[in-house]
């Protein structure tokens, strides 16, 4: 993959590792966060019949760059009673956890950080670091709002991990592999080969699978939405109750790191949904590169389709944020434990029976 390419280019394993580790950050996450922050403000504004940022650049398109310049200049405030070492480590830990996910996401058939066989499982597992980082931030700030926010966030992340894993297991039973690239390749061809339309299976099983795959998609979308603490599941940072949750005390670049991690996470969970149910990087209508006989065009088209689908789901997240009210803590837990988990289990059983057919 990308590592082998740089390894051949530079002739050094260390250099290749470093380059391929930094590439998604500068090539993808930073530009994505720049666009997504602006998009969020514009989308929310237009949903509420406002204009949003308008002053910096044409219709405010340079607003985020101005914000970043401001954040870099800001004083890095550490209050006297904060726990300094943990306070400084926490943003790094949170960002590391959400950045590590990008190591296993195949952006296109020729761009993939690491083609490990347990890619999907790795993505689920590495998010444990984020929980630990959030708890660390909440505790080190020495503030009751941050501690409450961190507790809520961790409880929510752990609870909603269960339905996510159940759906991942459901998909695993259909595909028979955890390798994200192989899962994507199983969905090649046209859009009716996507797993939400029953996958690339011949016969009656494909049509039987469609409703259960749809249920699975809805459940995993809800639970990943809760895992990134977005509305209607944003009780960890409920502004009206908790100021802004676990990152209340942070300022300057450390705050920016939390922000970056949040947006990176938003794309990461959308990417998981896309990879599992919507064909990953595959185009729904075939490739222009294949028709024209230009084979180098295909990976670029795949990159386009992957980011297109991913950003589509990010837009849905924003749409939901500005449409739905926030859940209460007990309602949040009830949704997870009383509805999503039982439905996910029944879904798992039925899909298992169908794949046996």
């Amino acid at each position: 993959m990308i590592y082998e390419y740089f390894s051949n280019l530079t002739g050094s394993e260390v250099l290749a590792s470093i380059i391929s580790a930094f590439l998604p950050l500068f090539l993808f996450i930073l530009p994505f966060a720049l666009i997504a922050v602006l998009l969020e403000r514009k989308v929310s504004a237009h949903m509420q019949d406002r204009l949003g940022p308008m002053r910096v650049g044409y219709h405010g398109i340079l607003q985020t760059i101005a914000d970043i310049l401001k954040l870099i200049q800001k004083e890095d405030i550490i209050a006297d009673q904060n726990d300094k070492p943990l306070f400084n480590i926490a943003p790094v830990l949170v960002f590391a956890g959400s950045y590590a996910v990008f190591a296993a996401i195949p952006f296109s058939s020729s761009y993939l950080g690491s083609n490990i066989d347990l890619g999907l499982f790795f993505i689920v597992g590495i998010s444990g670091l984020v929980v630990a980082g959030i708890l660390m931030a909440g505790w080190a700030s020495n503030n009751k709002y941050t501690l409450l926010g961190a507790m809520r966030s961790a409880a929510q992340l752990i609870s909603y991990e269960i339905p996510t894993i159940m759906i991942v297991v459901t998909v695993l039973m259909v595909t028979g592999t955890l390798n994200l690239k192989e899962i994507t390749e199983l969905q090649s061809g046209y859009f009716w080969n996507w797993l939400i339309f029953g996958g690339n299976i011949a016969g009656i099983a494909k049509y039987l699978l469609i409703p259960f795959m749809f249920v699975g998609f809805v459940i995993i979308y809800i639970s990943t939405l809760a895992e990134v603490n977005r509305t209607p599941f944003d009780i960890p940072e409920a502004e009206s109750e908790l100021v802004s949750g676990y990152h209340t005390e942070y300022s300057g670049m450390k705050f920016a790191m939390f922000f970056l991690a949040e947006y990176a996470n938003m794309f990461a969970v959308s990417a998981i949904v896309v990879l599992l149910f919507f064909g990953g990087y595959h185009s729904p209508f075939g490739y222009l590169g294949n028709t024209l006989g230009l084979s180098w065009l295909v990976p670029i088209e795949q990159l386009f389709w992957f980011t297109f689908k991913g950003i589509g789901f990010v837009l849905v997240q924003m749409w939901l944020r500005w449409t739905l009210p926030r859940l209460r803590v007990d309602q949040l837990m009830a949704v997870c434990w009383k509805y999503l988990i039982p439905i996910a289990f029944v879904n798992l059983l039925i899909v298992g029976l169908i794949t046996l057919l």
Partner: protein
Amino acid sequence: MTVYDITFYLFALITLGSAFFVVTIRNIVYSAFFLLFTLFGITGLYVLLSADFIAIVQLVVYVGGILVLLLFGVMLTHKITNVQIKSGTLQIIPSAIAVIVLAFALIKIFLSTNWKTFQLTAQNSSVQGLGVLLVNQYSVVFELLGILLLIALIGAASMARR
């Protein structure tokens, strides 16, 4: 020294160093967070041994589950950080004897065992072999463990209701 050696020593250093701090540091929250780095270092060691499945299970179960639960308990307990952990020394002579005997036995075993060594080859993944073994050869044990976990779950739920 290749890159892999350096990575191994790095992970070993993280594991041992943070494990040392887990037991010596006075602040209980710090101990819990050092435990995070210990468990993470062990994950790294598993990866270097190409035991990919166990490495990720280590992350999911220990970092994502047990450690977070532990942090919950530590943080929700009122003013737990103000408590001075008393770690004095009692009964030096018997404990010293016990430790020396144990250390001697361990070193003796390490040195006298005829270790089987394999050339490390990049294998595809350990998960398929593990899965086949679990549902064929060890299926009874596997099911029994499942029932055990279920019983523990029901017990915990019924205790929490009281």
